[in-house]
């Protein structure tokens, strides 16, 4: 391995970057500054069938199958805001732009990309690749709904663009949506154009003591926790005032997003929205959760790994058309509990699609369900 590493270091010398803490020491870390250069890296990797792990902010590396990379492709230097059109509510950014930085910038003109609200060091490219959405998906839909254009560096080093920089577009096949949640299986998601929304003039967080069947007409977000419910309201001042009164309960100005549920193991329980209350009854009392009514997801935190209860909850979810997905867990959990569970229908189609973007299957190999 060492000789491969030093050969690679020589070959990729122009893009070498500092090691990333906790990431495979034997891998060469590169941070190409342009998509063309990223394409050059992937061409080299493809030529020698070397596994590549794409690295953004590292916040969702716990999802999916583990990769043993020869090359870590960091998006740290792909960090430009390429084109922001505030009057058209669109923004084009490179993959390595941090979600928090982008949202800060957009907030300056009272706009938002509706990306996850508590992103940590997470990047836009990472959020798209992992297909993750924030709490506000209840009102604005998941991240995929705002993907207007994508530029992908395919596993074999081609630069491919799909979609366009306009808010409505049916020109050709919808590569932007295919890329969302693709976990690198098509290659590096290098650049995206996102649809933006205006930030409403007023916003409030209402706290209720317990869950209700209804929180009024399309609130911004609702988070049900074991001992409280947070209802997020946004709109005109008059609307927010009226809706606060309709809901009752205590409130704070602004949007007070909760952090992740406690526990070193984090999971996502996903079911049809109708089944969410039933799903919550299946989980052990020791798990903490944030349930998103209307979405059908419960974000779960667990302190300890108990193979029996994990498998039971997964079996229940899958038998009801849902899933129990690992978001973050120590290595030993990963080894004994499949990060995805039963692969979905149509795996043969998925394999055929992936083979046409990454024929040597070098970018994040095995990260998707079914070891794809």
């Amino acid at each position, binding site marked *: 391995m060492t000789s491969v590493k030093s050969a690679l270091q020589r*070959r990729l*010398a*122009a893009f070498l970057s500092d090691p990333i803490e906790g990431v495979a020491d034997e891998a060469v870390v590169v941070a190409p500054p342009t998509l063309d250069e990223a394409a*050059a890296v992937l*061409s080299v990797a*493809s030529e020698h069938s070397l596994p590549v792990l794409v690295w953004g902010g590292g916040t969702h590396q716990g999802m999916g199958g583990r990769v043993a990379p020869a090359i870590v492709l960091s998006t740290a230097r792909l960090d430009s805001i390429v084109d922001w059109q505030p009057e*058209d509510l669109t923004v084009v950014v490179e993959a390595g732009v941090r979600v928090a930085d982008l949202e800060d910038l957009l907030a300056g003109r009272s706009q938002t990309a509706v990306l996850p609200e508590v992103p940590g060091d997470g990047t836009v490219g990472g959020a798209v690749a992992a*297909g993750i*959405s924030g709490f506000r998906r209840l009102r604005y839909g*998941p991240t995929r709904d705002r993907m207007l254009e994508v530029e992908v560096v395919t596993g074999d080093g*081609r*630069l*491919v663009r799909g979609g*366009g920089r*306009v*808010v*409505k*577009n*049916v*020109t*050709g*096949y*919808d*590569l932007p*949506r*295919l890329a*969302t949640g693709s976990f690198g*299986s098509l290659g590096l998601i290098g650049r995206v154009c996102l649809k933006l929304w*205006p930030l*409403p003039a007023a916003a409030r967080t209402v706290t209720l003591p317990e869950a209700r069947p209804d929180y009024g*007409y*399309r609130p911004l977000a609702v988070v049900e926790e074991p001992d409280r419910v947070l209802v997020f309201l946004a*709109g*005109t001042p*008059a*609307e927010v005032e*009226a*809706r606060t009164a309709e809901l009752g309960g205590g409130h704070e100005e602004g949007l007070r997003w909760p952090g992740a549920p406690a526990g070193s193991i984090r999971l996502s329980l996903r*079911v*049809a*929205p*109708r089944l969410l209350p039933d799903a919550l009854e299946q989980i052990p009392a020791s798990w903490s959760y944030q349930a998103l009514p*209307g*979405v*059908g*997801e419960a974000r779960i935190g667990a302190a300890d790994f108990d193979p029996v209860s994990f498998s039971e909850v997964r079996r229940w979810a899958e038998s009801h058309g849902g*899933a129990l997905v690992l978001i973050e867990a120590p290595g030993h959990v990963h080894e004994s509990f499949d990060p995805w*569970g039963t*692969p*979905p*229908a*149509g*795996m043969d*189609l*998925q394999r*055929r*699609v992936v083979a046409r973007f990454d024929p040597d299957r070098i970018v994040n190999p095995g990260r*998707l*369900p*079914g070891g794809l």
Partner: protein
Amino acid sequence: MVSASVRHVTLVRELQHLLGDDRVLADPLRTYVYGKDGGIKRGDVAVVTLPENAGEVIEIVRIAARHGIPVVPRGAGTGLAGGAVPTRPSLVVSLTRMTQIEVDAESRSAWVGAGVLNLDLSRHTARYGLHFAPDPSSQAACTIGGNVANNSGGPHCLAEGSTVNHVLAVELITATGEMVVLGGDAPDPIGLDLRGIVVGSEGTLGIVTRALVKLTPNPPAVRTLLAAYDRVEDAAATVSEVIAGGIVPAALEMMDRPMTAAVERFVRAGFPTTAAAVLLAEVTGHPAAVEAEAELVRAFAESNHSTEIRVAADEAERALLWKGRKAAFGAVAQTAPDYYLHDTVVPRTKLVEVMAKISQIAERNNLVVMNVFHAGDGNLHPLMAFDASEEGVLDRVRAAADELARVCVAAGGALSGEHGIGLEKRDLMPLAFSEADLDAQARLIEAFDPGGLFNPDKVLPAGSRCFDIGRPVPEGTWI
């Protein structure tokens, strides 16, 4: 050697054995209408089938594959881009008999047969206070299957997004005649999001027999405003300012004078026919919100010199205004016997600039152009009215349409916002995409349908799949 007509007879017999005589149309007089959609091209139909369930579609696909005859899925045929027009003698699968609806009101979703009419779905779910958000102007006639194939839009997609945002899963019959459900009713289905590329794939990847669609709650309050202007620029400026001003209305539609006049003659919705432009804006939501937002829209209209602002007083007046908007294409028939309806998108900031260029293009080609469009999302629908019996007029229409597409793409726009590429714009695709981009799209088709069974010759121009593309590495960059 078996002759073509014998092969045709065998194919028809096999299909009749499966479906019975009355659900297989082989008589040219009866198949004639299946050779065309709402556009201007006509194709070649070998036989039409009318399946009633997915099992029958599976068998039809298997028979077609065995006979090596292309399969063209078809909804109501309201498409305008030639997506349902068979380019070679084809087996047309009309899905209009697949009309089942199963609603899960609590999850706000429904499994809907491909043949269900768009408006029928929203009528059906009204009892739950829910609707299907995409509302193309053809919604009384077009099918959900067609909406899925074209990723259809409509006025209310401004706030809610196009069909792809409202499809949770599709039941797809693949090229090997197998059924696969892509997606599901739980959020973020694991694995690659293949549903995302099936939506909008214009029937080239398989046949969608059912779709699981998201339903949207009916808003508790609605305000619909009409604003008239002496100058198109002022109407367009209102649109830009509303969007930039922090409101995304449910709909923001615009009509120019020729179109308003045609609509008014046809529907009598009370549109001001002397205005250069009419804007139709709708805000929906909580009662306290719509009051404030309607006031803001009114203020933007006033500051942009609107000559008349009217707020629909009741549901009847609102319905009449929308009837006028959605009847626009029907109204044109009173102006000229034929029309060519374009569909392009430009960044909203380029509306005024591009509209001026459109009227220049029409003038240069000696054509009447009328505009009615989804101004809020920059989705233009210039309509050229003409009389096809006039010699050479079709060439002028096509030349103008091509030029118009070039202007829109040059302005940073897209070839189509909601009608699709089909045949109509297929050969313009290189304007929007590089060779490598088109090759990647061709590879997607190849992954689903390697033999080119489904709706061949659509969306991508011939030769899009370039086998020599790969590794465009600048020599020496890394050595």
